[in-house]
């Protein structure tokens, strides 16, 4: 229903026009409380990052016992953890985040995750994306439902960094996508004015195809407008040049190295228009069954640097922005025979933003002795991931109870954690 409305407004504005429409007509104009619009950026780490080597319990003897070769050394030692609060430390390759921690703009919720434990990447990712753990058949993602709620009283837009729409954004509401990497504005066929003119004419009606074309072009215009100057479109490279690689467990998420570039572009988009309220980015490569230390040492610096770049880029609206970093599950407490870890349950969620009561590790930490582990092997889930998101939706995005119910159906807050100032 909402989508229909949105699209019909767009097509009314464009019926019979030959030229691509501007972004403004894509979403309905009207009252907007966008001046102080709040933003939410979700960064999804696909593959199940090892939260215990990100937020390290360096005062737990069990930690070092369980991980004889891959534990991060004590803070005082060489390549040791960066001490956070005397008990927990940060992986040394995330040093770019330390200023944020010291400014109290970064917090962690340890032991968080899906209350229904699935050790399959896909099922576990599905639950975090559809927001209905235990129910696989949910049609849409919680960010799409959230977008629908934000559009009830003002206009909002969701941007996804990637070539395809991830489950979390699938649903009735349309979203824009930013092609990842520095090629985000590389030419596609319909950027060519001659081609666009012909197809805009072909799809100038009010039928479903026409609406989709018009929405697609409008979304594309936004990206080009905001980012086109920085990275001029390449000539002569059509859609066929789109990257073909798709790594299975990554669901199309890219390698972390592109993350710094993407983060810079996302910052520009967030800053450019208060309507750009929701952003989803995902980064793959965290499935560390073997040789975990090398992999994390390679990937974490870009992740930290990218987040720092994002924060730097949105300075003027940092107070109105929350960035959440999450992953489908954590990994086994004990290291395996290949200097790696296997699929586990709870992880640490990261929250960053000007309004975060940061400099603190939240959650219900129960230690790593065998008795407190889930099935004797994993860090147990003590905070439902929706408890974290629900708090952001309420305190940051000012959602009322009815909206919250629609975003997270069948969910009852259990463990409220106040990490927003």
């Amino acid at each position, binding site marked *: 229903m909402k989508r229909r409305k949105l699209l019909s407004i767009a097509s009314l504005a464009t019926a019979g026009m030959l030229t691509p429409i501007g972004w403004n007509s894509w979403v309905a104009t009207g009252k907007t409380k966008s001046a102080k619009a709040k933003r939410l950026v979700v960064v999804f780490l696909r593959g199940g990052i090892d939260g215990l080597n990100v937020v390290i319990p360096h005062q737990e003897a069990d930690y070092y016992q369980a991980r004889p070769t891959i534990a991060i050394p004590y803070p005082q030692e060489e390549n040791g953890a960066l001490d956070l609060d005397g008990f927990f430390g940060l992986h040394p390759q995330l040093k770019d985040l330390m200023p944020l921690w010291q400014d109290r703009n970064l917090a962690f919720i340890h032991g968080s995750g899906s209350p229904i434990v699935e050790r399959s990447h*896909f099922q576990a990712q*599905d639950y975090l994306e559809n927001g209905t753990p235990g129910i*696989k*058949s949910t049609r849409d993602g919680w960010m799409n439902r959230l977008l629908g709620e934000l559009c009830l009283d003002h206009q909002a837009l969701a941007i996804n960094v990637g*070539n*395809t*729409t991830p489950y979390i954004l699938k649903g009735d509401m*349309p979203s824009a*996508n930013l092609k990842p990497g520095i090629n985000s504005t590389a030419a*596609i*066929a*319909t950027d060519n004015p*001659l*081609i666009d*003119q*012909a*197809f805009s*004419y*072909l*799809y100038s*009606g009010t*039928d*479903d*195809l026409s609406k*989709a*074309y018009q*929405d*697609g*072009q*409008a*979304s*594309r215009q936004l990206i080009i407008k905001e980012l086109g100057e920085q990275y001029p479109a390449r000539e002569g490279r*059509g*859609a*066929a040049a*789109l990257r*073909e690689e*798709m790594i*299975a*467990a990554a*669901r*199309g998420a890219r390698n972390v190295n592109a993350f710094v570039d993407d983060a810079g572009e996302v910052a520009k988009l967030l800053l450019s228009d208060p309507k750009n309220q929701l952003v989803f980015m995902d980064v793959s490569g965290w499935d560390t069954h*073997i*040789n975990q230390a*090398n992999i994390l040492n390679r990937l974490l610096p870009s992740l930290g640097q990218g987040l720092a770049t994002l924060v730097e880029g949105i300075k003027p609206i940092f107070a109105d922005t929350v960035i959440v970093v999450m992953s489908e599950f954590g990994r086994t407490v004990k290291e395996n*025979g*290949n*200097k790696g870890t296997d699929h586990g349950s709870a992880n640490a969620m990261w929250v960053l933003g000007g309004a975060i009561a940061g400099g603190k590790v939240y959650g219900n930490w129960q230690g790593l002795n065998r008795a407190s582990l889930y099935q004797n092997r994993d860090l147990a889930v003590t905070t439902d991931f929706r408890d974290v998101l629900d708090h952001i939706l309420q305190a940051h995005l000012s959602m009322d109870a009815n909206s919250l119910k629609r975003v997270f159906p069948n969910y009852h807050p259990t463990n409220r954690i106040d990490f927003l100032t």
Partner: protein
Amino acid sequence: MRHKLRNFLFILIAGLIFWLNSVTPAAAKVEGSQSRIRHILERLSFGVTAEEIQQVETQGIEAFIQSQLNPQSIAESPLLAQHLNQLDLSLIEQNPIALRQQMGANLKKLKNTKLSLEQQEEIQQQNIELNRETRDQATYVQLARAIYSRRQLQEVMVDFWFNHFNVYGAKNAINFWLDDYVNELRNYAFADFRDLLQITATHPAMLIYLDNQFNSDPNSSDARGAYGGLNENYARELLELHTLGVDGGYTQKDIQSLARIFTGWSVDYQGKKGNKIGFYFNARRHDQGEKVFLGQKITATGMGEGEQALDILATHPATARFISYKLAQYFVADQPPATLVDNLAQTFLTSNGNIKIVLDTLIHSKEFNDPRFYQQKFKTPYQYLISLVRMSEIVQPDFKRIKGMLNQLSMPMYMCVAPTGYKNTQQAWLNPQSMLQKIGFATAIANGSLNRDFSLDDQQLEANLGQLSPHTQQVINQSPPKLLKALLLGSPEAMYR
């Protein structure tokens, strides 16, 4: 000069429009049957080619339908053989078990503690490549068949059944079994539904995908480790997605009973105890107790229990209805008419679930032949790309590029993670991003991106695409001629079937 030409064209087109408007009733009748021919070809194939049009015109519609329902009666196209000959099939021609053992040997090497981390990574990489290359080969073979086979309805049914009985290639090592699995679905595409159930229930691809390989009675003698307990995954999806449907009237108790019934249906990776492709019933992990399933008492008969359960499911009215609904949705309309579904369900029950008979009924139903439903099914990305290649009659296309385009359109082959398979409705596939991408691909294909040495024949393409709407025609007339092919391939006419 140019001005004159334009005037001439205008008069020509105006004349044509006048002529089209003044066709006699007799001519209109021919036009009607022309559009029925087109409708049949659009729905029973992946896109119209000149050869098919000619075939229908020679044979007549009915003979064409009957030949398509009896694919073994159709001599295969030399063009298909030619394309298959040029593909590297070295991996999929091997036994899946042999490939799995190759992977297992690599995994064993990893246990050697003396290996450096670099060596470990290299071995891991070899396994990733082995999986990817096997899947790619299966992908390219299937694309070749879908594009060039003359047994088009059979290939269309492979698309239907694969999504109905979806497996996800990259889970564990399912990639190695994909080609075999698809071939089985092809062989049984028009068979009794019960046979399809048997094929899928005993195929390692399915047993791995839905975890039944681990499904064990916890108290049985061989229950240990990963094989130590009951796993309901397959039982649940068998009921929900393969047979009765989510509202098919079963309970959680039935799911548990069915899971117990299927304990021990597993895979033997050693290639010793199982059948040729590794299916293995392990009686020592089977629950020997009595079960009640859908109100029926199932006595302990080992593997026979599962077969009895499949018998019950294959002939169940809810199954008849569910399969009929899905077929009607695939072949007629996203919201299929209830009358048609009822009719098909009846046929399903009276024919003992014979798919050929059900399809025959479907194709001859008044709903299928109602012009109201012509050109109303929005092509999935798979159907769209294959139809572009077919309508353009491109030979030697770059299969790897087609695969990449499918990835870009969020429909990577054999990589649908959810057991629901890919949907075939407009709601699932029409969105702004994919629309621009499709037009990008249409333009690229028009410019020869799938085969630089092949030049598309405009007239042939137009003929294959069929009658254009006045609006499409008008846009083409007013656009630069060099955009003609792109506009045809990116037109609404090309996006619906």
